[in-house]
C-alpha cells in the first residue's frame, strides 16, 4: 500500500504534528536507512541524541500501523508521518531490500498476536468449557461491581428525591457543589456516567431560561437508570449490557468477539466524530452502514493524553470487513472482527424520513438507555434561519416521504441541526439550495451532521462543535 501525502496528513493527531513531520522530510535526516517491502516501510531518523529513532510502518492491513522508538506519546508520531510523507513524495530514496530485524520482528509479532487472538476467540466459541471458565472469572468481578453500583444507586436516588422534594427553584450555585460531590460519589461507586450526568446537570443550574427543564430531564434519566439497576436481574441479557454501557462500564471487546452477532458486509464510513472528554480523554465515534445489509454500526474508541487512534477509518469510503456486535437489546456498537480492505461499492441508501424516525423510536423502545442513533437521509436540503443574532440550521425534507398516515411523512418537514456556524455555512455552500445526502447523529432533540454528499463532493464534519455558535 502506498499513501498519498494528503492521506498521510489526514492521520496526524494535530497540526503541530504535521508541521513537525514536514520538518523531518529532509533526506539528510534519514541517510541511507530508508527501505520498503510489500508489507512495511522503515527508516532511522536522526534526532538530538546519539542513536537515531527507528521508525516503521506496517502496511499489510487496510490501514497502516505505526511504531517508533522515539518517546513521543502522539500516535502516529512526527517520525512516522515524515517517513510516509517521504515515501509519498520521494519514493526513489527508498531501497527495496530485506527488512531489518527490528522491522520483521515487530510485524511478525503483530501477525502472531492477531492470529492468537483469533484462535482464542474461535476456541471460546467452540469450547463451552473453556468459555465457561473464562466467564466465571469475570462474573465474580462483575458481581462485585454491581454491588458497588447498587449502593451508589441508593445514594443517588435519595439525593435526586431530596432535590425534587425541596424544589428546584431554590437551586443556586452554592447547591451545585452538593451535586458535584454526589458526582464524585458516583465515580467512586463505579458508575462514572452517572457522575458525568450530574456534573453536566449541575453546570446547567441557573443557566438560561430552560434550565429547569434540562435539569429535570437529566434527573429523570438518572432515576430510570437507578430503577433499572435495581431490577437488572429481570432484564434480558442484551438490555443488561446496555444498562452497563449507560453506567460508563467499559465493555470488553472480547465479549463482542465471543458472543456477538457477526455481520460481514461492505461498510460505508459515514461519520467520524472526535470529541474531547474530561481527564484528557478523547472519544471517537465511527458510524458505519452496510452496503448490502443496510445494518448500522458504531465503532467507539478512546485514546488518552493526545495520542491518536491506531485504526484509521477512511471517511466517505467503503471497507470490507466483518463486524461483531456487542450483545444489546438493539445492537449498534460493534468491533472489527476481521482485517479491513477498502473496496468500491454501491452508494448507501436511506429509508424515508418517516421510517428513519420510526426506527429511532424502535431503538429507544428496545434500549431506553441509548443516547445516539445514526440517521441517514437522502434528498434533504439544509437551510438557515437567522434568529436573535444567532444562526439556526435546519434540514428540510421536502416531499421525501411516500408513506401516508404519519405526521413525520407529511410533505415538508424540518429537523433542527446541531452544527457550528462555519460548518453550517459549509453545508449550505455544498448544497446550494439543492438536495443532498446526509448522515448524522441524532440525540433525541437535534441532528449533528457527520457527512454530507452533494455534486460538489463529500463534506465531513469532525471534531468539536463550538457550542456558543451552534444552534
Amino acid at each position, binding site marked *: 500500500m502506498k499513501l498519498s501525502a494528503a492521506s498521510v496528513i489526514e492521520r496526524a493527531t494535530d497540526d503541530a504534528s504535521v508541521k513537525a513531520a514536514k520538518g523531518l522530510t529532509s533526506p539528510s535526516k534519514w541517510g541511507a536507512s530508508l527501505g520498503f517491502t510489500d508489507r512495511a516501510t522503515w527508516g532511522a531518523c536522526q534526532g538530538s541524541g546519539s542513536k537515531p529513532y527507528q521508525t516503521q510502518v506496517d502496511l499489510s492491513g487496510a490501514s497502516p500501523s505505526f511504531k517508533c522508538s522515539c518517546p513521543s506519546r502522539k500516535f502516529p508520531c512526527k517520525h512516522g508521518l515524515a517517513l510516509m510523507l517521504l515515501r509519498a513524495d520521494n519514493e526513489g530514496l527508498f531501497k527495496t531490500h530485506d527488512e531489518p530485524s527490528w522491522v520483521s520482528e515487530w510485524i511478525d509479532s503483530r501477525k502472531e498476536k492477531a492470529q492468537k487472538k483469533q484462535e482464542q476467540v474461535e476456541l471460546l466459541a467452540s469450547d463451552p468449557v473453556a468459555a465457561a471458565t473464562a466467564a466465571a472469572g469475570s462474573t465474580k468481578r462483575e458481581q462485585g461491581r454491581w454491588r458497588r453500583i447498587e449502593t451508589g444507586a441508593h445514594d443517588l436516588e435519595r439525593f435526586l*428525591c431530596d432535590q425534587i*422534594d425541596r424544589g428546584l*427553584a431554590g437551586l443556586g450555585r452554592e447547591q451545585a457543589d452538593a451535586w458535584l460531590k454526589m458526582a464524585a460519589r458516583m465515580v467512586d461507586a463505579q458508575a462514572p456516567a452517572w457522575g458525568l450526568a450530574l456534573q453536566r446537570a449541575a453546570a446547567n443550574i441557573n443557566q438560561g431560561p430552560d434550565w429547569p427543564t434540562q435539569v429535570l430531564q437529566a434527573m429523570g434519566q438518572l432515576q430510570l437508570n437507578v430503577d433499572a439497576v435495581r431490577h437488572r436481574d429481570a432484564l434480558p441479557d442484551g438490555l443488561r449490557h446496555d444498562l452497563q454501557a449507560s453506567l460508563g462500564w467499559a465493555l470488553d471487546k472480547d465479549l463482542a468477539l465471543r458472543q456477538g452477532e457477526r455481520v460481514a458486509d461492505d461498510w460505508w464510513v459515514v461519520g467520524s466524530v472526535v470529541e474531547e472528554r474530561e481527564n484528557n480523554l478523547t472519544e471517537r465515534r465511527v458510524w458505519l452502514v452496510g452496503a448490502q445489509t443496510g445494518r448500522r454500526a458504531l465503532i467507539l474508541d478512546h485514546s488518552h493524553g493526545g495520542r491518536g487512534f491506531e485504526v484509521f477509518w477512511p471517511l466517505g469510503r467503503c471497507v470490507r470487513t466483518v463486524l461483531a456486535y456487542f450483545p444489546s437489546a438493539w445492537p449498534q456498537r460493534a468491533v472489527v472482527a476481521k482485517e479491513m480492505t477498502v473496496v468500491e461499492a454501491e452508494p448507501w441508501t436511506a429509508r424515508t*424520513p418517516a421510517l428513519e424516525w420510526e426506527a429511532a423510536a424502535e431503538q*429507544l423502545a428496545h434500549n431506553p438507555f441509548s443516547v445516539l442513533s445514526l440517521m441517514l437521509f437522502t434528498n434533504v436540503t439544509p437551510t438557515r434561519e437567522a434568529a436573535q443574532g444567532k444562526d439556526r440550521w435546519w434540514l428540510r425534507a421536502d416531499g421525501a416521504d411516500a408513506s401516508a398516515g404519519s405526521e*413525520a411523512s407529511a410533505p415538508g418537514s424540518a429537523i433542527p441541526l446541531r452544527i457550528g456556524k462555519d460548518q453550517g455555512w459549509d453545508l449550505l455552500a455544498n448544497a446550494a*439550495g439543492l438536495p443532498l445526502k446526509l448522515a448524522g447523529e441524532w440525540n433525541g432533540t437535534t441532528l449533528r451532521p457527520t457527512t454530507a454528499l452533494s455534486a460538489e*463532493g463529500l463534506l465531513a464534519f469532525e471534531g468539536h462543535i463550538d457550542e456558543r455558535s451552534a444552534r
Partner: protein
Amino acid sequence: MSLDAFLPSALLGTARAPTLPALGEGAVGALFSKLQTPKEASTPTEGPPAAALTLLRCVAAANLFARAGFVPIGAESTDLPPAPDLSGERQRAAPISPLESVLAEQMPRLTAEVLDRMAQARLRAPGPVLRSLLDLGSRQQALRPSVIAVLGARGRWLAEQHEAWAWAKGSALNGKERESEQEQWDFGSLVQRTAMLTRERARDPQAARDRLMSELKELTPEDRTALIGALRIGLSHEDEPALVTLTGDRAREPREAAVALLSLLPESQLSKRMAARMAAVVTHTGGLIRKKTWSIEPPSQTDEDWSRDGLSTPKASPQKTGQVNAMGDRARWLMDLVAHTQPAWWEQHTGMQPQALVQWANDSDWAEPVLMGWLSALETFPTAHWAKALHDHGKGSALTPVVKLRLLPSMTKAEREACWLPRLQNIGRHTDIFHGFIQGCPIGESLSAEFSAPLVQVMLKHAAGPNGHYGLLHTLADLVCIVDPKCLAPILTLNLDAEDVTPSARDFLAKAQSVARIRSTLSDWILTADPA
C-alpha cells in the same frame, strides 16, 4: 410530550406541591396512572419521599415518550431560498486540496494570483471552500474582485444568504445570469456596477457619464467615489462639465475623485488654473540674449479657488510628507501646487527635460517642496521618464532611498529592475529595499527571470545564514510571491535542516518554501482540473 406538566411541582418541591396532573390518554395515560399509584410494598418507608420518586419516574417516562415521539416541525416554518440555476454554469470546479493549501497560507498576493489564474482558466471555487473565500473577501477588500471572479453560480447564491457577504451580493443571477448590463447596474454589487460602468465607458463614454450623473442622489459617498473613478476610462474634455459639478459634492472623497480626473485633462479650467498658478511661481530671467535662468518663488497666499481645486491640504506632519524638517506655509503651498500639476507642464513651460529639471531643482532654495511635490505628482500622473529622472538624480534629505521607492510603481518594469539591480549586490543591512520590490510589483505581476535569479540568491544569503536579517525573514514569503516561478528552484531545494539554518529562520524559510511549492505547481493543477 413536554415536561411542562411536571415543572410546577418540580420547581416548588413535592413537599409543597405533591399532586401531579392527569397525564396522557390511552396506554400512555395508563402508564402514568400506574406510576402515580401508591408505591409497591418493597419500597421502605424510610426511603426517599414517595411524591418525589413518583415525579422522577414520570419524568423518566415522559423523556422517553418525547424522544420516541419526535416529530419534525413543518417545513413551512423554515425558509428555503430558490436554488441557483446551475445549468448555465460555465466555470469548472477547481480541485479542493490545492486551493485549501493556498488559503491556509493567508497571503493576499498569493491568493489574488491564484484566484486570477483560476478565473482566466474559467475555474470556479468548489463548494467546500466557498465560505472561506467569502469570509476572506469580507476581511480584505482588495481581494474582492478576485473572489467574485471565481464564485460561480453556487458561490454567488451563497453570498445572497449572508449579510456579511453583501459585497458579493446580487450576482446570483445566472447566466444566462446577467441578461443585460442594465440588470447588473440595477442589482449588482458596487464592484460589479463599477465594472459595468467601466465597460460602458469603453463603449460609449457619454452614456456612462449620463448614467452616473442621473443617479447621483441615490448613491452613497463610497459608491460615488468608486463610480467617478470609472470615468477615467475614455476621459476627455467632454467630461469636464460633469466633473466640475462633482467637485461640488457634499462629501470629500467624491470631490477629490472628481478633482483628480479634472487634473488629468490638460485643457480643463482646473488644469489651466494650476498652470497659471505654477507660471506665477516658476519664472525666468534672461531669454533674449542671455540664457534663461529659471527660479521659483512660492505663492505668498492662496486664491479663492484654491480649496475647490483640491489644494487645501491640512498642516502636514513631517512623517506624512517624508520631510525631515517641518515646512512653512509657503513651502507647503508650493509643494501642493507642484503635486497637482502634470509633470509635462514643466517641460512645456521651461523647455527642460526631466533630468535637467531635477538637477535644477536640486540647487534651488525650494528643493524639498519641489522634489517632494514631484514625487506626489508622479503618483497621480505616473510618467516613466520622470520617475526615473527623479529617482536617479533627485537629492535632498527628504528624498531618501526609502522615499524614492514610491517612484517605482511609476516606472516600467525594466526601469524598476534596472534601479534595483545595482543595489541588490550591496544591500548590506538595508533589507527594507526588499519591501520596495514588493510594493513596486503590481499584484498579478512577477519580476523578470533576469532579476529574479540574483534576487533569490541574495534573499537566501541574507535570510538563511547565521546572520539572517530578521526584517528580511518576515518578508521572505511575500518576496517568493513576486519571483519569477522559473527561478524558485533554490528555494524549493533549500535544506531546512542544514546546520547553518538557525531555528528562528527555519519557520520563515519553511513558509517561503511552501509558497514556492504552491506557485511552482500552480499551472499543473489549473490545467489539469477535471472538466465539469
